[in-house]
């Protein structure tokens, strides 16, 4: 019989233990304790966040499936749909960067193809500690090659992402991976099980003792030796994933699958429980049939294993033989391991013994939910450092371009296969990645964004800004923003200040996504990102997807051209608080990030999108980190051309150049298109300002500040390669 400590070592607290015993009305078996512990864990039950996540804005006429399934589904017309989600793999990537990141990519891909979509693009959002921290180089290099190693091998292009550095991640880096897939409306697969007596089928890699978190005492059979050998980080096998992907998609062409669910966290347990729960049925598993990698695995181990590249399906009996043939053809294990029952219980049998028999609602509906205490953080002391108005502007621009959060991430994205599938339309480095849809004029634009500095200074403003920036990045490529996914990375939710920020974050996301008609269709929460009591910056990553209906405009869009006129869409910059300028140049962080006026955001964005789609613009880039001048520099570097920029002398030039006010874009337009553009801008009565024109091979600001393209390039490109070569 399990002893007292066993609950504790399974992360089940006293109240939860009482609830467990009361529900069950008897002593649980060790396997049952394991099952409860994972189903009631933060990871599976979202016990700290579920109460608040309900608040999110999740509807819209484009939404086919919102949160609650493996991934969100959005209509893109012509009977087609995109399926996407983002997920974190933070902790594993910290202790084994290559495998942790690789399996993160593998996991999110399965979430997408389990719903019937062929993955068409991958994105990733990464945060590391300070760039000079001794571990950063090792983590960055391992994580990036892990992400590439997995995605490249399966053959899905990695087309966009973001990478940031900050001291708060020194002991806790973040790896958020996003996958976008494509399918048709009639080929969307859900996890809801049905059909009493239908076979439950296991496909994919064999089960090993991977990631079983229970303590040693969980099973008498563990000794020190086996403990030592038990992997806490899984090794990914992208080759196995590729075969699993092809086999699943092939079977999905037949009417064989009733329901399907990938085995993610808590593997067999959560997949079987979720399928049965959604269908309000029971499920019975016979563990003797589970393909295993190691000998003598116990029921406890099999139920809790987190081995990768596995799926669980409910099939129609008539098509089971056919399904077997498909999987065998692809060389993928296929085993009938159980059946759907009418008991509403999860029943687990192993070696003629019932190892678990639990009413499924105990594991799902009755799982604990916490409405944890919230209280706002004490405002940090305002920094009193004064801005030196006589600062050297050229030097400032170069320093910003050469700073970790703004500099080029080429060293990273050159390791990701971008051109495979032959549909990626833009080179890396744009605001959003674009993938064309074979056989149509359509394309999907994708971006992932968050500014953790803003989100930590003011959780609600920061969250609004993250949604808005993602929206803006999609607009900047001329696409119609459709919907978002998210990954909410926070510290310990039992701390009221963190929970407060979490709640404010949800408010911010909700407000912005409602106003911008950019609903949340999937997401993920990662809590307890702390080391020695020091939490990470709040990092609610937003991943967005947009639709381009006709890609023709792209042919003449994307570069600033000789003779173009440059304009700012939006207000002049006013506020340096929380900006990159403050951080990089002044070494201070204040607590007042720019607010987003969602009305302005929407109007500006829609007009910019119209200008692009009417083929009036040569280029467009939103203004974010570093402000207006950095945005111009990025476009000049990309276009390999210079510009003559004039900033009116009556304003505050530092604010105009470096402030990060929101809802703004830099655009360039040929002289012949100018009048048409003015007409549209004036009709919409939105703010815009002429800034200068494109020419030569240097950036000139107010004739006084002159920076050659070479200098811009070197500042922008060299930081990470130099770090990695050192």
């Amino acid at each position, binding site marked *: 019989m399990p002893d007292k400590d066993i609950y504790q070592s399974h992360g089940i607290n006293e109240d939860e233990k009482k609830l467990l015993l009361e529900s069950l009305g008897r002593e649980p078996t060790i396997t049952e304790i394991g099952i409860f512990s994972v189903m009631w864990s933060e990871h599976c039950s979202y016990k700290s966040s579920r109460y608040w996540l309900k608040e999110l804005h999740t509807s819209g006429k484009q939404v086919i499936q919102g949160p609650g399934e493996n991934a969100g589904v959005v209509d893109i017309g012509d009977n087609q749909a995109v399926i996407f989600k983002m997920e974190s793999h933070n902790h594993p990537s910290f*202790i*084994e960067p290559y*495998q942790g990141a690789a399996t993160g990519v593998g996991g999110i891909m399965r979430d997408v193809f389990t719903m019937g979509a062929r993955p068409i693009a991958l994105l990733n959002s990464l945060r590391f500690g300070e760039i000079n921290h001794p571990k950063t180089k090792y983590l960055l290099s391992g994580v990036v090659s892990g992400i590439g190693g997995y995605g490249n091998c399966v053959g899905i292009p990695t087309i966009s992402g973001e990478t940031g550095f900050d001291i708060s991640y020194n002991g806790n880096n973040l790896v958020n991976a996003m996958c976008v897939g494509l399918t048709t409306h009639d080929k969307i697969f859900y996890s809801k099980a049905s059909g009493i007596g239908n076979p439950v089928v296991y496909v994919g*890699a064999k089960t*090993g*003792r*991977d990631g079983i978190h229970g303590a040693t005492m969980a099973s008498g059979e563990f000794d020190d030796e*086996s403990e*030592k*050998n*038990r*992997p*806490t*980080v*899984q*090794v990914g*096998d992208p*080759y*196995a994933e590729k075969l699993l992907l092809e086999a699943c998609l092939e079977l999905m062409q037949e009417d064989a699958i009733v329901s399907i669910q990938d085995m993610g966290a808590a593997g067999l347990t959560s997949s079987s429980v979720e399928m049965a729960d959604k269908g309000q049925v029971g499920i019975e598993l016979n563990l003797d049939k589970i393909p295993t*990698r*190691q000998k003598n695995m116990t029921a406890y181990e099999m139920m809790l294993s987190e*081995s*990768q590249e596995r799926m669980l399906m409910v099939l129609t009996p008539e098509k089971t033989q056919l399904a077997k043939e498909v999987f065998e053809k692809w060389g993928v294990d296929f085993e009938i391991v159980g059946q759907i029952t009418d008991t509403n219980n999860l029943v687990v049998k192993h070696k003629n013994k019932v190892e678990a028999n639990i009413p499924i609602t105990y594991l799902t509906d009755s799982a604990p939910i916490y409405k944890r205490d919230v209280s706002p953080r004490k405002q940090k002391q305002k920094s009193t450092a004064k801005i030196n108005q006589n600062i050297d502007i050229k030097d400032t621009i170069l320093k910003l371009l050469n700073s970790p959060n703004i500099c080029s991430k080429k060293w990273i994205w050159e390791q990701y296969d971008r051109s495979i599938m032959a549909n990626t339309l833009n080179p890396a480095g744009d605001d959003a990645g674009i993938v064309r849809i074979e056989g149509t004029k359509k394309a999907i634009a994708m971006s992932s964004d968050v500014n953790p500095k803003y989100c930590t200074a003011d959780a609600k403003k920061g969250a609004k800004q993250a949604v808005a920036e993602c929206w803006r990045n999609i607009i900047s490529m001329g696409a119609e923003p459709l919907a978002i996914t998210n990954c909410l990375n926070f510290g310990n939710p039992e701390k009221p200040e963190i929970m407060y920020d979490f709640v404010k974050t949800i408010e911010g996301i909700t407000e912005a996504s409602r106003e911008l008609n950019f609903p949340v269709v999937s997401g993920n929460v990662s809590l307890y990102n702390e080391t020695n009591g020091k939490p990470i910056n709040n990092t609610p990553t937003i991943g967005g997807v947009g639709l381009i209906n006709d890609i023709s405009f792209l042919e003449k869009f994307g570069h600033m051209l000789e003779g173009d006129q440059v304009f700012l869409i939006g207000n002049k910059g006013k506020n340096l608080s929380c900006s990159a300028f403050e951080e990089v140049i002044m070494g201070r962080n204040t607590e007042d990030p720019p607010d987003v006026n969602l009305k302005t955001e929407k109007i500006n964005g829609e007009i910019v999108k119209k200008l692009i789609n009417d083929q009036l613009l040569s280029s467009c880039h939103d203004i974010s980190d570093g402000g207006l001048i950095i945005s111009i520099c990025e476009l000049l570097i990309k276009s390999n051309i210079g510009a003559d920029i004039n900033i009116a002398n009556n304003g505050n030039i530092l604010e105009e150049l470096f402030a990060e006010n929101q809802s703004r874009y830099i655009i360039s337009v040929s002289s012949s298109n100018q009048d048409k553009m003015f007409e549209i801008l004036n009709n919409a009565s939105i703010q815009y300002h002429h800034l200068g024109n494109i020419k030569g091979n240097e950036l000139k600001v107010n004739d006084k500040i002159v920076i050659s393209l070479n200098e811009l390039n070197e500042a922008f490109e060299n930081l990470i390669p130099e770090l990695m070569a050192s």
Partner: protein
Amino acid sequence: MKARVFVRLKSEVLDPQGQAIESALKNLNENNIKNIRQGKLIEMDIEAKNVQEAKKSIEDITLKLLANTVIEDYKIEIE
């Protein structure tokens, strides 16, 4: 002195490479070979006063650089 470090995945960790080799050998009708595991062999020259010292040095760099003991074991041999 010459030294070699063997770095291998822990016995319970999935070894996709070993698996792939094993099934390739099956296809080549080699059925008497089993449990293939692929690891790394790192060879080097080391200057040290004695074997003891060399071993210590190498253990040091193995933990720092060559092996991640979350998933790997290692063994050091000095000639």
